[in-house]
């Protein structure tokens, strides 16, 4: 194992350019599990823990900036995140136990690209922008384009996640919902994880709706068919049933060690229904 230690951003980018095969080390809560099982023997690791600026969270005129190395704890207790992006604060609280929340980072969570990433449905409905940086320059990637598949991102060679930009929606949603379903109430990897935003018009028809589910496809999914079907409709049982019939177009759950396809389909239906029927 070869360890590269970056003292600052410039050095990190220079080292990553020279060693594009290196694995960036943020909090390490996933990477170190691989190390403990011997999977990382012979690999090169790029330690980013000295990039203190990348751990900042700050309120901006448009929303919130969350540095890639901000921990889940820092996110879940941050007043601006709690008030403006409550679903992200709530989802950060469901990741692992306190020990993981104190060490794991949002940038690491995204770069790790697990299909079960607990923050991802919230980032999807808030339409987060991922800021990346490499020796060649900076890019902004819409959250919907950051994943290429299971454990794969669209990050390019030598490119690191610098931070996440969240923009407050122009009108406040009248309903926001987050729900994670796992084997235990806490410290569990999700079987299904849901986030939703809803805007209603004065006549109770749907002005806009954003729904997302995790652990039900290779990466988190916005439920585009369901969203389209509900937009402009009154949220009556008929419209909800019609929309839910499109669920299998939006998600593709599988049987695995944590759950089954059928259970995930059913629980996804129930999560959406309870969000749409909430008062």
């Amino acid at each position, binding site marked *: *194992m070869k*360890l590269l*230690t970056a003292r600052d951003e410039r050095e990190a980018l220079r080292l990553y350019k020279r060693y594009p095969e290196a694995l960036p*080390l943020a909090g*390490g*809560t996933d990477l*170190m*599990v691989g*190390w*403990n*099982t011997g999977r990382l023997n012979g690999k090169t*690791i790029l*330690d980013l*823990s*000295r990039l203190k600026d990348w751990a900042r969270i700050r309120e901006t005129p448009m929303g919130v900036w969350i540095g890639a190395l901000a921990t889940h*704890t820092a996110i879940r207790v941050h007043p601006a995140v709690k008030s403006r992006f409550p679903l992200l604060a709530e989802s950060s609280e469901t990741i*692992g*136990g*306190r*020990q*993981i929340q*104190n*060490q794991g980072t949002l940038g690491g969570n995204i770069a790790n690209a697990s299909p079960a990433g607990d923050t991802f449905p919230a980032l999807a409905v808030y339409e987060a922008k991922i800021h990346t940086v490499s020796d060649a320059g900076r890019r902004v990637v819409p959250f919907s384009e950051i994943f290429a598949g299971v454990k794969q991102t669209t990050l390019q060679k030598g490119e690191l996640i610098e931070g996440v930009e969240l923009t407050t929606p122009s009108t406040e949603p009248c309903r926001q919902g987050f729900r994670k379903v796992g084997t*235990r*109430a*806490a*410290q569990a990897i999700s079987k299904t994880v849901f986030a939703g935003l809803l805007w209603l018009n004065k006549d109770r028809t749907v002005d806009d709706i954003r729904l997302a589910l995790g652990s039900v496809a290779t990466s988190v999914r916005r439920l585009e068919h369901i969203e389209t079907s509900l937009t402009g409709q009154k949220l009556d049982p008929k419209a909800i049933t019609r929309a839910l019939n499109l669920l299998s177009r939006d998600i593709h759950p599988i049987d695995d060690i944590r759950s089954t396809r059928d259970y995930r389909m059913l629980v996804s239906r129930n999560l959406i229904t309870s969000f749409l029927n909430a008062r």
Partner: protein
Amino acid sequence: MQVKINNKNRSFNGTPFKRLIDVLREDFGLTGTKEGCSEGECGACTVLLDGKPVNSCLISICQVEGAAIETVESLGLPEKLHPLQESFLREGGAQCGICTPGMLMTAAAYLKAGGDPSPDAIREELAGNLCRCTGYQHIINSVAKALSENKK
């Protein structure tokens, strides 16, 4: 590299990717910290990093340069126990003892933060610490007792 362990400045010159738990146990003889699952599920290896509970089996020493680490050895002495050690003794919060150092450290951070002594809040706070003996009730009682006595 320098790291503060249990309020003493220590220097470490070994391999920079050595795990914190191994540095504590092997280089500094602090064997109170236990290794359980090695994957961040069980919390037996919990220590405080700048006052916050973390899994020492998932941190390499290079990540904590200049930081302050507290282990279970920092809590109390046989002749002067920490309030949590007292309450674990009195309420039967320890059985085989492997999870106990981790439970104590997570609870110690919670106590210091003036945590809510309700059983639900304690359960959530301790969710990252598994115990295979007690069924948790005695542990929750122990922590609740220490918290409520702290409030008095």
